[in-house]
């Protein structure tokens, strides 16, 4: 084996490692989510950025918080706060909605590795 062969093997191994690191995910973790108002998509956002998001619904503005691969309703102009009770969502297939305000979020990830639906 020559030095060239060793170099080729090292490069190949490094490429495999890099691809693994880049594309492998826990089986059910979501990577992005979609926001809808009254069923119509209004935006698609990654879960890996820390940010707050205001969404205009029928009654007013709902506040979504994205942090550490998760998203949740923080505030919403509804009386019962069911959406806020839903807490953090992080799995592919998860969803939460503020029905009075007609705002919903649904999470998705690499469907080949994750789940097709969640029963709750």
């Amino acid at each position, binding site marked *: 084996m020559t030095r*060239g062969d060793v170099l080729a093997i090292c490069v190949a191994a490094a490429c495999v490692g890099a691809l693994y690191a880049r594309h492998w995910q826990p089986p059910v973790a979501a990577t992005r989510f979609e926001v*809808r108002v009254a069923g119509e998509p209004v935006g698609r956002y990654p879960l890996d950025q820390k940010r707050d998001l205001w969404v205009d619904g029928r009654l007013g503005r709902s506040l979504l918080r994205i942090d550490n691969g998760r998203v949740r309703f923080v505030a919403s102009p509804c009386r019962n706060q069911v959406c806020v009770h839903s807490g953090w969502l*992080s799995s592919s297939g998860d969803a939460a909605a503020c*029905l009075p305000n007609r705002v919903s979020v649904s999470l998705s990830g*690499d*469907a080949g590795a994750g*789940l*097709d639906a969640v029963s*709750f």
Partner: protein
Amino acid sequence: MKLPDSPHLRLFLRRLLLGLVLAGLFTWLALRPQPGADPRLVEREFMAMGTIVSVSLYLDADQDRGAAEDALRTFERGLSDYEARWSAWRAGALGQLNQALERGEAVQIPAPLQALFDEAAQLSAASAGRFDVRIGRLVELWGFHDETQFRSVPPATEDIGARLATLATAPPLTAPATGYGPAPQVWFDFGAIAKGDATDQAVTRLRAAGYHHLIVNAGGNLRTAGRRGDRAWRIGIRHPRPDAEHRLLATLETAGDEAVITSGDYERYFEHGGRRYHHLIDPRTGYPAQGLQAVTVVAPRGALADAASTALFVAGPQHWRDVARQMGVEQAFVVDAAGKVQITAALAERVKFIDGIEVHVQP
């Protein structure tokens, strides 16, 4: 082609070839179509029946995406008819029937409602009244009938007692349910069975339109048919008390006609005085059922799984197994107040729980 004579040149060409093959392989790996963007998977999500409904179709190789999206839009319109028909509090078929009862009239059950009334009557009898569609007035008292009208304190004990007393003296619903009443205090609420039935209807309709592989998800009430290409559908079941690492309690795979329906105390509830008051009302006590956090039922049809998940929740940790048997449910599990799982043997073979869950198999 004749190889060059120089050994250096031959070595160089060999390495060049290897390098090009490797570069090609990794380029393909990096650029290959992502599994999330499967062109044969068509999904549509909309709000109906007071929740999020989503449908995933897995197309056959010769089926067209555009046609599938049209079929789902048609289905969405049909679903709003279904919602209007079964809504207890609006002016559809069931709402009008309720208003006629309130006026003191005896009612005929309209033909489009007949089948589900019959099924509700049978399941109510099989569950010994733990599932009961006559409890609309109790649900109303608790404020769980309308997501914009939840209470934040429980109703007065006397009010609950009064509505229980009228329920106890009201005529039972019997199959075949052609007529009912007079029973002016009874208000029918099909909330514990209609979503499951809607998912059955969805499968029937979409199958008639030529789609045989699908999941219908009506607010976490799942109904599957067929498969997702070369594998089964993969279903997760929500953890009743999730934390950052444990969003899901279990997973299972389904192939063919199955409903997976979960009832939990976390779906609609309020807290008062340190206690949780949820929407799964025991028709015999008038209060939210105690002792369990969640129940999951797997059954061939959504209507059965929906009604059974409610009845088993109401039955509680001591009696759920017997009630399942009475209702013809073989596959179910319950999560008790301490987070421990009891599961039927038939379902235990199929479900994978996350680590750290204590699971007891019941014969």
